[in-house]
């Protein structure tokens, strides 16, 4: 188990990795990736019981994570590599033809750690619930996690799944909504208001928690609280407030960096704000 300072160091390196990866292929989604880095780090290096050294699809007796907002793949790939699923140097192939690190995650390239394709939004929660049911049927007491974007939950399928899980008492599942308030075309409040998210999920029957997703102490603590709330006939959802572009001053406070790659000058400026803690790939 890593202490908070170590987790912060890892998150720092992940931010460097993902920026360098996106710059390397001149494409990708830095904004949401930077915002969700602390959560992904806390999940893989603190909260989850998993075995990176020998990946197998079923993940029996392991906690599984499903990334529904697949466009933040750069952050996830870095966390997977840094936790030992595949060689860190492979991060340099991100989005380049022939890579296993496709633009959006897929099991088709047999990249260790990936169990389902995502990118077309709104599907991951359903997959996570299905997997949570299979764990129950298999007598496996592990936990299933699912991360979604806030813009993503404008998709109707999310609410089909949100209705299903409490009705069926899926209480081995922790869903997380990255509430950064921004999407491609602008603030969510302008594109399509999400309303009172905690109230919405609560009214669907979920046990709702809230946290600041960019405060490592709070993330680690809330994930522990969430785990303790399981096995209580309700699924748990964490509404996670984050800052899109977190860690890079000129990428914060705007939706402009949702899907744009930094050029060489911008990369240098960004990396100057994020120390190299574990060694670049």
């Amino acid at each position, binding site marked *: 188990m890593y202490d908070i300072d170590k987790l912060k160091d890892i998150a720092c390196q992940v931010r460097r990795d993902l920026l360098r990866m996106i710059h390397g292929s001149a494409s990708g989604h830095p904004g949401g990736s930077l915002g969700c880095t602390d959560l992904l780090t806390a999940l893989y290096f603190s909260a989850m019981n998993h075995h990176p050294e020998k990946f197998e699809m079923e993940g029996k007796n392991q906690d599984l994570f499903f990334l529904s907002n697949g466009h933040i793949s750069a952050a996830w790939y870095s966390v997977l590599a840094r936790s030992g699923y595949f060689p860190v140097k492979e991060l340099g192939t991100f989005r380049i033809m022939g890579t296993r690190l496709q633009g959006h995650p897929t099991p*088709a390239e047999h990249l260790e750690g990936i169990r*389902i394709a995502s990118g077309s939004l709104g599907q991951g*929660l359903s997959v*996570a619930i299905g997997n949570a049911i*299979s764990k129950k049927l298999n007598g496996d007491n592990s936990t299933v996690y699912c991360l979604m974007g806030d813009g993503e939950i404008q998709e109707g399928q999310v609410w089909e799944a949100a209705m299903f899980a409490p009705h069926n008492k899926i209480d081995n599942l922790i869903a997380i909504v990255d509430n950064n308030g921004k999407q491609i075309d602008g603030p969510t409040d302008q594109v399509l208001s999400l309303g009172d998210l905690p109230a919405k999920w609560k009214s669907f029957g979920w046990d709702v928690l809230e946290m600041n997703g960019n405060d490592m102490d709070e993330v680690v603590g809330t994930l522990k609280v969430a785990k303790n709330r399981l096995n209580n006939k309700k699924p748990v959802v964490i509404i996670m407030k984050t800052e899109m572009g977190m860690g890079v001053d000129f990428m914060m406070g705007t939706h402009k960096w949702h899907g744009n790659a930094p050029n060489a000058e911008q990369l240098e400026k960004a990396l100057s704000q994020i120390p190299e803690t574990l060694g670049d790939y």
Partner: protein
Amino acid sequence: MKKYIAVDEKDTRSGFGAGLFELGQTNQQVVALCADLIGSLKMDAFVKEFPDRFIQVGIAEANMIGLAAGLAIGGKIPFTGTFANFSTGRVYDQIRQAVAYSNKNVKICASHAGLTLGEDGATHQIMEDLGLMKMLPNMTVINTADYNQTRLATLEIAKYNGPVYLRFGRPVVPNFTNPNSGFEIGKAVTYEEGTDVTIIATGHMLWKALEAWDILHEKNIHAEIINLHTIKPLDEKAVLSSVLKTGCVVTAEEHLRNGGLGDSIAQLLALRNPAPVEMVAVDDKFGESGKPEELLVKYHIDTPDIVEAAIRAISRKKG
């Protein structure tokens, strides 16, 4: 004297229900999901006997496909059940990403396909589903002919590891295939050998093709009747070797001409051995309310249409 006379009549969907129930007894990994159509899909027996392995998803088909993919990751063999329209068109992107591209062991089982759904009309009569599904890489596409074949196919797809689309229908139709013949995915079945024309039929159209054989036989036309229950992967060898013998083809399906079985056969022949092809399929239009048999006549996918197509195909042969 007619060779093909229906002695038993059943709906294909009941074959699915029977097969699913048997799987429930024999394979602990089989899980069934349904989107509020248990009775229509004939899943009642499975639901009653194996409630722990049945998931009622409500009217939420997109969620059902995602659930199935997640169950498959956990080692389960999920069978989803709803009408063909809601099994394909409504959830195409979910199937594309979470099942086909992700190559999950999900069995998408679809009833009420095609015109023979009848009175509910065009909103429910999907005739594009074979095309939609066959275009997806990794997807196996099966369209069964009767109760016996549907039951056997249901049992067989549980043994195959990969995405499958299994299409069947609503009406009671002749039940004539051998219940003990087994079912081999991707393997065509020859019902009659002939030298003048190859008639390739799938789904409910197989019986119509056999009726056409009787009529052609009386006209001294020797038709070869092949049942292609598996649209994809296509049994290319069976098709090519038959056409080598007969020199022309008629395809018969309860589907649009665009994207269906005939389209696959025409593509194969154009690339490998060009020969006249006539397609008994629905033109580029939606269906409508009516009795199944009336609709087959109106939309020109009935027995006489197969007979006429065979005569046209033969007349187009060179030499």
